[in-house]
């Protein structure tokens, strides 16, 4: 049987220090070098997003003939007008939102439940169940396409929100289970024992202790998964047919014309519009997410 992937943990968790209390040394070569290196890497990481946005403001001519990496000669919002005209971006964003939220609710709720059963309640085959979940982390999602399509058409689920939500949630569930498991490991046993002595059963303990304590992990799980789900192309493309249900990646396909001709500047404008909601959420919540991820990781 497969063993679990969450190995040992540091003897005790040292909380991240808010301010590093190291003696100030005079600037040396190493420090300067590392500063420069960090700046370089940050540029590499941020540049594409800036490029994407700048390109969405270029005129078609400028994009076609000019140096794609120079600053645009003139800026235009026309691409955005064309983007909204060609596609039903609002509808696409709404659909992506429904799918992302739907999947996230399942991932978080079911992930917590499974982790609670495995880590807190405990049962004889819990190692086996953990192993089963490990398979889901490991296998690539593409293998489910053909079978799921056949199953869906048998039970009439094609072309519905559920058809996208189920596999997206299913494949993200294992990671969520592991994150919650590793978090629950660190809720002291005494907390539960005290609650048990007060006469609380497993359901009340779940609702009153475990659930409220998991908030940071919830944010982490939701944000990490949202990144993948918001941009999912493969399941949506396979299971969705009608225009009304198209999510953002499918909506972007509407900018493809005859024989593969693409209106790139409008496409980039659309890309900018569609990543904005995710970006905003990300920027607002990123502190909570980073914290959740850091604590999740260091705890195993």
């Amino acid at each position: 049987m497969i063993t679990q992937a969450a190995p040992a943990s540091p003897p005790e968790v040292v909380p991240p220090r808010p301010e590093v209390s190291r003696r100030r040394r005079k600037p040396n070569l190493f420090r300067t070098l590392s500063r420069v290196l960090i700046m370089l890497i940050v540029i590499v990481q941020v540049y594409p997003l800036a490029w994407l946005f700048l390109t969405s403001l270029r005129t078609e001519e400028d994009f076609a003939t000019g140096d794609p990496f120079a600053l645009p000669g003139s800026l235009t919002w026309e691409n955005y007008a064309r983007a909204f005209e060609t596609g039903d971006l609002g509808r696409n964003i709404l659909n992506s939102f429904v799918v992302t939220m739907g999947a996230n609710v399942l991932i978080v709720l079911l992930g917590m439940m499974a982790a609670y059963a495995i880590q807190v309640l405990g049962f004889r085959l819990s190692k086996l169940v953990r192993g089963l979940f490990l398979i889901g982390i490991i296998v690539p999602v593409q293998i489910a396409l053909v079978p799921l399509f056949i199953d869906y058409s048998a039970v009439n689920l094609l072309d519905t929100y559920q058809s996208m939500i189920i596999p997206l949630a299913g494949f993200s569930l294992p990671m969520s289970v592991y994150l919650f498991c590793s978090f629950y490991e660190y809720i002291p046993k005494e907390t539960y024992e005290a609650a048990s002595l007060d006469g609380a059963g497993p359901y009340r303990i779940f609702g009153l202790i475990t659930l409220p304590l998991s908030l940071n992990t919830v944010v982490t799980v939701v944000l990490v998964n949202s990144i993948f789900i918001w941009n999912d192309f493969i399941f949506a493309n396979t299971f969705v047919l009608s225009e009304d249900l198209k999510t953002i990646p499918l909506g972007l396909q509407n900018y493809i014309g005859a024989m593969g001709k693409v209106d790139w500047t409008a496409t980039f404008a659309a890309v900018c519009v569609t990543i904005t909601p995710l970006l905003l959420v990300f920027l607002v919540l990123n502190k909570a997410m980073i914290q959740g991820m850091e604590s999740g990781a260091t705890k195993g």
Partner: protein
Amino acid sequence: MQPNRMLPNRSRTSVLVFLLPPLLLYGAAVLFPILQSLFLSFFSWNGISDMEFVGLDNYVRMFVADDIFWRAFLNALLYLAICLVLQLGGALLVASLLTSLHRGRELIKTLYLLPAVISTVAIAFLFVRIYSIDPVGLLNQLLHWMGLGSLERPWLSDVNTVLAAVSAPEGWRFTGLYMLIIYAALIAVPKELEEAAVLDGASRWTLFTKIRFPYIRPVWITTTIMATTYGLRGFDIPYLMTNGGPGQSSELLTTYMYKTAFTSTDFGYASTISVFIVIECLVAVGLILFLLKRKADS
């Protein structure tokens, strides 16, 4: 081993109540399709014909008669290696540098995560521009400026460079995620240990290899497993940038399986490749656990 049980009194029903719904979803979306793939791999079926039982024919074809399969397998391993170096190496480097920084850590962490938010379609197009030679793309321009003109080439058309070229965006995209995790582990290293070592006159390198790295090893193993499984899943970027080409130079097992299923409508054979991918992934993770754990023990 004793089952891990934190609650002294809990009923069997309560376990089922919490366990069944997740298992049901997971079974329907993940486990059952895997079994169906296994089943389909013994058949020849193009979607509209009658299914024909062919026994192990598909497996024989895969192992003996299919040159593209082996090519794709090797490519997938190379792709994985490049992604791992970029993601883990890059993450470790940046995380280490970041610990020596006094201000702006939070900002850099956020900026570093940004690429993960952009959709693969946009990333693929961006990198096609970066690698382009006619019109001159960013990479070739940079090489030119640095006086390395002899290295300029159409990176995505050259059979020798294309695999590295499609791996890099994937590595670049998620390195921020791993950096965060490793960074968190690094700042958890007790300062007393480090300071004691510094007093003993340890260099930065010994400090890293003797104190820091051993301390974060458990996290390192988790990160390696994550990066490996994501690397083996790689699909979007090679599919969108080169569609496996030129020739089969950037064909991965996943893109090959996808094409076999949805271009060649050979669903039976595609399922056979799926089964192989599942086994490949399980073996890879097993191997990592075995190697890294053994190293830790020695």
